[in-house]
């Protein structure tokens, strides 16, 4: 039981008073940013990055993990009470949960969401703890060419599979990769995209880019389209569930977890697809299908569990391979690199204390979240009343402060504004943010692995395909890229079929 011992060691680290305090701060902040409109966990972690310089990696990562999980709890509260989901992964919760709230069952909707998130988060974290070491064992045997292929797969799937427009995804990816080029090439010492500005020769700090794109861009975008009429929040009491609600909830929780974890762990799984799948499944299996669309508790329990389990799944490739698959994981990876920690399979070997304390803190954070969310939901809902000028001025204020504190240079604030304007334009014209961030983070590492593989093969291109894993992954990439073309041809020329694949239509129906 090596893993068990390591995990116990992790608990010992995570349960020290200091780390426990950071876990508490993390889940409180996370729930707050999840509830607040306009801020998500990715932005919150980006804003916290400069502040955590002096904290040390373990405490910081524990806090970030709390923010990550907390953001999801808070997000479900907003979507149930407000019916305006902030993220695509809570769209389903908003549909069914808000109907429940309107029918006077807000308390039950919040309860099944919170308890379901707890169940899914705990099972998901347990799966992470058991699976990640196996992935690592497999991954340490891989050479640079295999890594290169896996990172290419991660980049392309994030770009081409998620999001509604591939063209715009690739455009965003290109911008991210280009920003990643700025600075001195680590191998040859040549300057790239520096334009003779000495302040650029160290490259653009990932913190500055992340804060600019997530915080400044978002604040400016919302300011330009600020909702002036007040949205209505449904008043809510103490969340609770009756015996019948429990009976109807526990199976959807487990099924949602089963959908969520594997999708989260895949390079392009995300949380959207499993929440849709969970919803459709619950609708099919329910004894009360007529309630769906009018506030069925299964339609909240399943998707919420799927959402949280996918978050735990996302951490598997992040910790075991150094491969981020969503924005929050990307910023967490940037945080690790800030502390000079090399992400990748060696992380488990080099930083066992950090990794296992992080995993242990996920269990702790999940429990804390259940404890603070069940009794305090009405209090959290009050956060929605914060005057919007203060909220968005505050985001700009702390974004400026954070970006400045990294290097104490007013020049970074100029970059912040320019990249913030880019973030604004991207939101306006539907360029997804995720490919830019992942491209920025993975671009330099992909270049490193490319050079390493070709150096080992003496410049022979066969060096890129010298491992079976690399070949398999490239075939997968080819299939993923070709699949949409085939589907389109099939729709055009293939036999007419009832549209069973149209999840969105089913949900709306």
């Amino acid at each position: 039981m090596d893993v068990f011992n390591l995990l116990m060691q992790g608990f010992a680290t995570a349960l020290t008073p200091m780390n426990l305090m950071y876990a508490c701060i993390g889940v409180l902040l996370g729930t707050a940013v999840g509830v607040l409109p306009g801020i998500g966990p990715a932005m919150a972690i980006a804003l916290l990055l400069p502040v955590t310089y002096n904290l040390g990696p373990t405490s910081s990562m524990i806090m970030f993990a709390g923010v990550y999980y907390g953001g999801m709890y808070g997000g479900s509260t907003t979507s149930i009470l407000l019916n305006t989901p902030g993220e695509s992964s809570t769209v389903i919760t908003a549909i069914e949960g808000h109907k429940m709230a309107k029918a006077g069952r807000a308390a039950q909707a919040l309860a099944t969401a919170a308890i379901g998130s707890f169940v899914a988060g705990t099972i998901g974290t347990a799966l992470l703890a058991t699976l990640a070491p196996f992935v690592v064992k497999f991954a340490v045997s891989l050479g640079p060419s295999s890594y290169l292929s896996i990172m290419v797969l991660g980049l392309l799937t994030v770009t081409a599979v998620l999001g509604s427009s591939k063209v715009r995804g690739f455009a965003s990816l290109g911008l991210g990769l280009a920003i990643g080029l700025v600075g001195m090439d680590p191998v040859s010492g040549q300057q790239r995209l520096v334009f003779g500005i000495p302040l650029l020769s160290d490259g653009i700090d990932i913190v500055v880019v992340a804060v600019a794109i997530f915080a400044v861009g978002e604040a400016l975008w919302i300011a330009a389209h600020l909702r002036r009429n007040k949205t209505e929040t449904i008043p809510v009491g103490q969340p609770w569930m009756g015996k019948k609600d429990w009976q109807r909830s526990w199976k959807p929780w487990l099924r949602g977890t089963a959908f969520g974890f594997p999708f989260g762990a895949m390079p392009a799984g995300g949380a959207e697809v499993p929440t849709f799948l969970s919803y459709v499944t619950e609708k099919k299996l329910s004894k009360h299908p007529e309630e769906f669309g009018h506030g069925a508790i299964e339609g909240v329990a399943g998707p919420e569990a799927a959402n949280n389990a996918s978050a735990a799944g996302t951490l598997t490739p992040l910790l075991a391979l150094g491969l981020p698959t969503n924005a929050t994981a990307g910023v967490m990876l940037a945080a690790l690199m800030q502390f000079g920690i090399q992400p990748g399979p060696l992380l488990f070997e080099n930083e066992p204390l950090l990794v296992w304390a992080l995993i242990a803190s996920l269990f702790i954070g999940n429990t804390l979240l259940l404890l603070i969310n069940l009794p305090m939901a009405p209090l959290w809902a009050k956060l929605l009343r914060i005057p919007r000028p203060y909220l968005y001025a505050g985001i700009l204020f702390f974004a400026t402060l954070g970006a400045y504190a990294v290097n104490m240079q007013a020049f970074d604030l100029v970059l912040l504004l320019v990249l913030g304007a880019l973030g604004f334009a991207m939101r306006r014209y539907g360029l997804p943010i995720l490919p830019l961030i992942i491209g920025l983070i993975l671009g330099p590492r992909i270049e490193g692995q490319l050079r390493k593989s070709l150096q080992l093969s003496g410049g022979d291109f066969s060096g890129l395909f010298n491992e079976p894993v690399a070949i398999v992954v490239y075939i997968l990439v080819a299939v993923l890229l070709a699949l949409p073309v085939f589907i389109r041809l099939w729709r055009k020329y293939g036999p007419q079929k009832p549209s069973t694949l149209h999840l969105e239509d089913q949900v709306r129906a």
Partner: protein
Amino acid sequence: MSQKTDAGTPASKGRSELGIAALLGAAGAVVLVDASRIAAPYSQTDVVGPRTMPIIIGALLLVSAAALAINVLRGGRGQAEEGEDVDLTHPADWKTVLPLVGAFVLNILLIDAAGWVISGTLLFWGSVWALGSRHYIRDGLISLGLALATFYGFYFGLGIKLPAGILAGVL
């Protein structure tokens, strides 16, 4: 999941999105020109060299620029991002955004000379005003409080010395 670009976004944007394509094209050109400038002697230990990635990325940007331009000309439109506080039924409100950017620029100009306490106060106060709050005195007090709290919080809590500027002796 497929090419569903226009989701009935209100305030039809015409073809201003071509500007994004132009931006991408310009970025691609800059990356390629910069790459051509790099003198990279062939070396046995670094066969790939510092130019390969920029060339790939520049090409990617140029291809995306062209593809986006074609997409827009064929009637494709990017879907503006929605959110809890975002109301897309009215067009972009520049009367809010420009003063916000103004407050931001003012902070950049003042932060080193006047110090964070002054520039931060003006930044928050200006932003709140731009966003529509008209409680001048309350907003001013909150702004000053935030700037002072972050100044001392960073100093004592994190050991980060934000610039004190002209208040150097006072704070």
